[in-house]
């Protein structure tokens, strides 16, 4: 039973149901009294008994704690009045033993529950079924009786405060707004609000040809624009039943995995910021800049690339680029140890993240999370391996392991720092760790792709014509973008402009767990948990 706030479902309240039973019972009893008793006692009794439930209901509808509490107290007054009239009826021999027994059982239950209800008003709603966090006596249910020892603690409780974290807040990653209900430092409820960055990208997609919509996909997950380009291109290619040439396939792997590294670098650096450590952010950006330099050479843009496109890519890799890319990887790989020293294995970092925001594998699956958030909970799922044929074909023949804790350990293909004993599978630390390991994995993938690309024959895949008619039908494809499974959906009526274009955001599902993960944590844990989900609002709001 959930107690709480300005709710409209008062019918579900146990106090209300008891009050209903009381009112109906007194009615039935008084119905058989004589005229005299009905006119004097009966009317008063029924009015008082009816008033109990009526006031509970009215208080519920008022929408504020103050009003609700006031009406609940009036209900308590009415209950005492009912008791008075029943005592009068008893002393005037109007009640038989069976009726007294029935009435007493109701009143004995109703009175303490009403008291507990009054006390609970204004306290956070806690659902004992979904709530696994134990935060002390605040998890109270309707069964709390007056003689319950916990009740005494309620009397010295502090007032709750409703705080808006965002949309203008340093650590809500853009324009996310979280409404926190806090009691001191303890957060009892977190409600995310979205939509501050909505740009109607999907509607625009219904008015442009697929290739013209590519720049709009850049602006979804703007930290991994290349991977967004890839997702949409593959979806259109699925509809067209087109397969890019082998060289183009490897080119896409190079670019997509470099995009993944660049994106995870931001995720890692920003997570350090969330925890109050500024330097790792700049260390991460230093390396990201180098990747952006490489991307700039490839397509001229540093953030919104529009490089990978339907058919392949807008241009081949420039001469000498592969050597530069290899040189970067060579230089970048040893630096990862620095990140591990500053964050992953830093004892304060472990203190702040280990055991915080623990998400079970079942919960991760039920909420539809994906990417590192899902794998951080120990679910072995990566679309690069488990995805649709048209996507996994890209990674055909590549040697890589899915970064996930299997049989109690992570892949052992490289020397990774050990998992600290405080860390629990599915907590913030593991989500962060998965990202860090995926960077290493991506380095391997890029190296393999460079080898294959340089030996592959044929073209890199010319872009398809802008005005090319799409075949009638629909296509949906999910790809493994850095933040999770990014899905694109395309319905065509046979013209060159899609009839419907949709995007399924991974960050959206990943964000949906915040309410449950943040319940009962401290304010300082909110940035830690939200940061570990690594959301990008541009993708959520589209």
């Amino acid at each position: 039973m959930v107690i709480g706030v300005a709710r409209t479902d008062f019918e579900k309240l146990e106090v209300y149901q008891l009050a209903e039973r009381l009112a109906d019972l007194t009615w039935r009893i008084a119905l058989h009294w004589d005229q005299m008793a009905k006119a004097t006692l009966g009317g008063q009794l029924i009015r008082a008994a009816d008033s109990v439930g009526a006031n509970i209901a009215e208080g519920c509808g008022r929408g504020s704690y103050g009003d609700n509490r006031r009406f609940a107290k009036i209900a308590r007054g009415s209950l005492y009045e009912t008791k008075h009239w029943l005592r009068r009826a008893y002393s005037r021999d109007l009640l038989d033993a069976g009726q007294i027994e029935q009435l007493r059982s109701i009143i004995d239950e109703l009175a303490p529950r009403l008291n507990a209800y009054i006390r609970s008003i204004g306290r956070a709603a806690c659902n004992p079924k979904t709530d696994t966090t134990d935060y002390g006596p605040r998890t109270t249910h309707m069964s709390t009786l007056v003689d319950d020892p916990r009740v005494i603690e309620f009397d010295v409780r502090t007032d709750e405060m409703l705080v808006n974290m965002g949309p203008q807040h340093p650590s809500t990653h853009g324009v996310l707004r979280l409404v926190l209900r806090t009691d001191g430092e303890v957060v009892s409820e977190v409600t995310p609000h979205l939509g501050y960055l909505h740009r109607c990208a999907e509607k625009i997609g219904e008015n442009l040809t697929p290739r013209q919509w590519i720049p709009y996909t850049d602006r979804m997950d703007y930290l991994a624009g290349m991977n967004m380009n890839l997702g949409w291109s593959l979806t259109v290619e699925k509809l067209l039943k087109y397969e890019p040439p082998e060289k183009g396939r490897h080119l896409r792997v190079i670019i997509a995995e470099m995009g993944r590294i660049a994106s995870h670098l931001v995720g890692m650096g920003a997570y350090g910021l969330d925890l109050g450590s500024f330097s790792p952010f700049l260390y991460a950006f230093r390396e990201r800049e180098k990747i952006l330099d490489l991307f700039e050479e490839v397509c001229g843009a540093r953030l919104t690339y529009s490089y990978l496109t339907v058919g392949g890519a807008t241009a081949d890799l420039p001469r000498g680029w592969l050597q530069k890319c290899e040189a970067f990887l060579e230089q970048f790989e040893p630096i990862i140890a620095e990140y591990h020293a500053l964050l992953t294995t830093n004892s304060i970092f472990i203190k702040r993240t280990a055991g915080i925001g623990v998400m079970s594998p079942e919960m991760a699956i039920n909420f539809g999370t994906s990417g590192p958030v899902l794998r951080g909970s120990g679910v072995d799922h990566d679309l690069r391996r488990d995805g649709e044929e048209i996507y996994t074909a890209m990674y055909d023949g590549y040697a890589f392991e899915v970064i996930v804790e299997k049989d109690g350990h992570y892949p052992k293909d490289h020397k990774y720092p050990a998992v600290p004993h405080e860390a629990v599978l599915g907590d913030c630390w593991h989500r962060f760790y998965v990202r860090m390991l995926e960077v290493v994995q991506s380095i391997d993938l890029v190296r393999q792709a460079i080898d294959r690309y340089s030996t592959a024959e044929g073209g890199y895949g010319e872009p398809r014509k802008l005005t090319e008619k799409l075949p009638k039908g629909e296509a949906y494809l999910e790809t493994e973008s850095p933040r999770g499974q990014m899905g694109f959906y395309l319905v065509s009526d046979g013209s060159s402009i899609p009839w419907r274009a949709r995007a399924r955001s991974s960050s959206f599902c990943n964000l949906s767990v915040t309410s449950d993960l943040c319940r009962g944590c401290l304010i300082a844990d909110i940035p830690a948990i939200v940061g570990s989900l690594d959301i990008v609002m541009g993708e959520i709001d589209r």
Partner: protein
Amino acid sequence: MAEFLANYLPAWLAYMVAGAIHVGLIINLVAVGALVFIWLERKISGRIQDRLGPTRVGGKFGWLQTLADGLKLLTKEDLVPGGADKMLFRIAPYVSFCASIAAFLAIPFAGGDYPFIVQHVNTGVFFVLAVLGLEVFGVILAGYASASKWSLFGAMREAAQVVSYEVPLGLCAVVPVMLAGSLDLVVIGDVQQGWFTNWLIFHDPATFLIFWVYFTCATASVNRAPFDLAEAESELVAGFHTEYSGLRWSFFFMAEYGSMFSVSLLASILFLGGWNGPLPITEWLGLTAANGDIAWYIGQVLGVINVIGKAVAGVCVMMWIRWTLPRLRIDQVMATCLKYCTPLAAAFFLGAVAWQWSLPGRTFFGLLESPAELQSVSEGWSDATAAATDEDEPEASEDQTVSSEPSRKVAAAKLTGAAALQIASTNLQGGK
């Protein structure tokens, strides 16, 4: 100085002029110190983060950057939120700033018979710690008066933090006091004369370890990362100073950097030899009072450079920590201070007592003979252990031999923190 001026001016005017000069010097020290530290912080953080930091303002190295920032802050609008308690909101930065400056009144910059100090307080350690504790009132006031929920969170955290770090901080400061046998900062500094082996940090293993506990708690007391919970920008927007702008905001920062400087000065006097360099260079060069006033004065100035150098090094370490570590959570800060630092400080205190009791008259981890200045204190220890007689406190006699004539006058006044403030403002003396 007041005595000197009294030869030429009426007494009340002499005291006022002397007071104004001292206060002017201290405010300049704090303000210029903050100016330098903010520039230093930006340079250090820049270098730590592979950047250059400020490079342009003022020619090379951007050394005028802070001044440019200050000018910008001066021109900003002085905003007061509509719902704020306007008076408290306006006062709060000054409370912090005044507390931060007031601590310098009792901090000596050079010792000897005529120490460089605004007011020679013979309970200097107590006074400085007490006044530094006042700084948090400004923070709590600011948070309370801002009418912002984030500010309120910052103030609540500060209040929770202050009760946790004050206890171990005080316990740590007690150890040098015990070893020197005096609460007088001048005495504590002077007993560490000679080689660096006489520094109290190297006195025994317990003092060596308790120095780090002191430094941790001192970092917490000045709200520096990883204990900067009251302003925690990633959680509380800007914490207690969310609603502040312009010059009022900068006063909080002057106070923060001032306190960083004063706790580092305290650390260098209590543990790191104060104005005594690692080697007795001033003695080798004959820069002592025996060789005339000028030589003595140069020696004293060298001492000032020494103590300030050590303090600046301490501040730099704090900056290094800030740009390296993530922030702790409030419960973890309280656990660190109360659950770890307090028992550690208590244990090290007992360790230092036991060491001094079993090895009196030794220093540098018991390897060397104590210098003469420490010996007299040690005699008190050996007397106490041998005879356990009820004679007068050995510290009292020690105090009289080391401290100067005026300091005894102050000692007679039986100072409390508040009385010390009063005396500091009316009875200013110092230097020669």
